């Protein structure tokens, strides 16, 4: 059985394109494992983030795996699988900017990808101008060229950009993690319909299986060993 999965492959290391234009990363590996465990074939499709949920609701694909944080608003609109990864919102700044905490961001401009929890978190900060980008990479690029003061995004992504990309790691750093009351988790999103419910069950089953047999940990180790 095929399940068509939408992924915005601009979110390294969670999901990204390799040079042969294949979607690779933590989530694709996870999906392969889940598929194997639960008995479906994941077909990953690279889709732009803005509108990825519109496409899901419109039935263009069966499921979204794109580092989607589970939020209450989103839960109103779609179904979610069990959480598969815990994230925090990290704030990246230019080295030497002196920004050390949320308070230092007052009066500053913070970039984030449109419709991400990073953007919602930035918007929630008092006295901060939140600016949206189609891709987080573009926000980082603007931070790099000095148009904005900070970027807020999921911590694995932030780590990838700020620490692993040689060009950026010279100039950028993770300043701090945004404090939050609730823990934030990634989940796979499904449309609110019968097929969606079936698929949620299927994926949850597979996810539970690989967590139990250690496959999950191996994949985490593969992608986040540098941390």
């Amino acid at each position, binding site marked *: 059985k095929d399940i068509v999965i939408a992924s915005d492959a601009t979110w390294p290391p969670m999901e990204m394109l390799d040079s042969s234009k294949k979607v690779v990363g933590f989530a694709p590996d996870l999906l392969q494992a889940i598929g194997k465990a639960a008995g479906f074939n994941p077909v990953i499709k690279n889709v732009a983030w803005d509108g990825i949920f519109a496409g899901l*609701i419109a039935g263009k694909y069966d499921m979204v795996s794109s580092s989607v944080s589970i939020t209450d608003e989103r839960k109103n609109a779609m179904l979610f699988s069990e959480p598969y990864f815990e994230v925090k919102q990290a704030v990246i700044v230019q080295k030497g900017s002196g920004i050390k905490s949320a308070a230092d961001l007052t009066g500053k401009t913070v970039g984030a990808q*449109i*419709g991400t929890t990073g953007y919602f978190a930035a918007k929630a900060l008092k006295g901060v101008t939140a600016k949206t980008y189609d891709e987080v990479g573009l*926000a980082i690029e603007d931070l790099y060229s*000095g148009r904005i003061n900070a970027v807020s995004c999921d911590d694995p992504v932030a780590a990838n950009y700020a620490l692993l990309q040689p060009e950026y790691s010279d100039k950028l750093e993770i300043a701090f993690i945004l404090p939050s009351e609730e823990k934030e988790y990634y989940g796979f999103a499904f449309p609110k319909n019968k097929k969606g419910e079936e698929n949620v069950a299927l994926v949850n089953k597979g996810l539970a299986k690989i967590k139990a047999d250690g496959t999950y940990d191996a994949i985490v180790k593969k992608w986040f060993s540098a941390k």
Partner: protein
Amino acid sequence: MFSSTGNPYFTAMPEDRMQFEITEGSAIKHPRYSGLLNAWTLSFVGALVAILYLVYSRPDPYWRILKFLPDGILVTFQVTTASIFFALLLGLLTGLGRVSGNRIVNVVASTYVEVVRGIPLLVQLFYVYYALGRYLQVPDMVAAVLAMSVCYGAYMGEIFRAGIQSIDKGQTEAARSLGFSKRQTMFLVILPQAWRTILPPVGNEFIMLLKDTSLVSILAVTDMLRRGREFASETFYYFETYTLIALIYLVITLLLSRGVAHMERRLSYD
């Protein structure tokens, strides 16, 4: 000799009931114009009524969307007016360059026109914003205006060129023979006459530019479209948001196009 030219009138033949017909109607003097006129009224009133109806009948998403947009609309206008201003400047220079007798100036201006018209505006926007962004540290609005101006400057240049070339060469000769320099001839005699030819197409470019400013939303400039996309990305009201945005653009551009048509008619009269 009595009649010598063909009859310029044609009468309606309403006998056929086919779907597509050749116009032969003479009742309407300018069938084309009045056709669009009615269509204009229909579109304009329709769009306005649709906006009002949606906002009143379903304030939940629509009124919220509408409240979310104003600063974006302002940005759209700011980018449009700033870009048109610089595009006009650049267009004037380019137009002058394109009619210049100086071979180098001419080729430079022509190459600018060819190159800019050969590259999609979106690519130009990305290029100026992200690619040149590393070397050219400019705020995003400035980058957007810069890219739009450079692109539209090429089109404006062709409008200026055509306007300048539409002026009879006798005007140049008369001015030169009075002792005016080339520059004086251009600025005192040619351009003051050329603006009549130039203004209507510039009006159209203005409308096109306004529409094309929607592209800057991709550059994280928070214009009207970007504001709408932000709203939709949070609330998932995609359909409602894009409906409203399309209607607002429609109202604005229809108003502007009416203005341009009006100007065109006034210029063609006296």
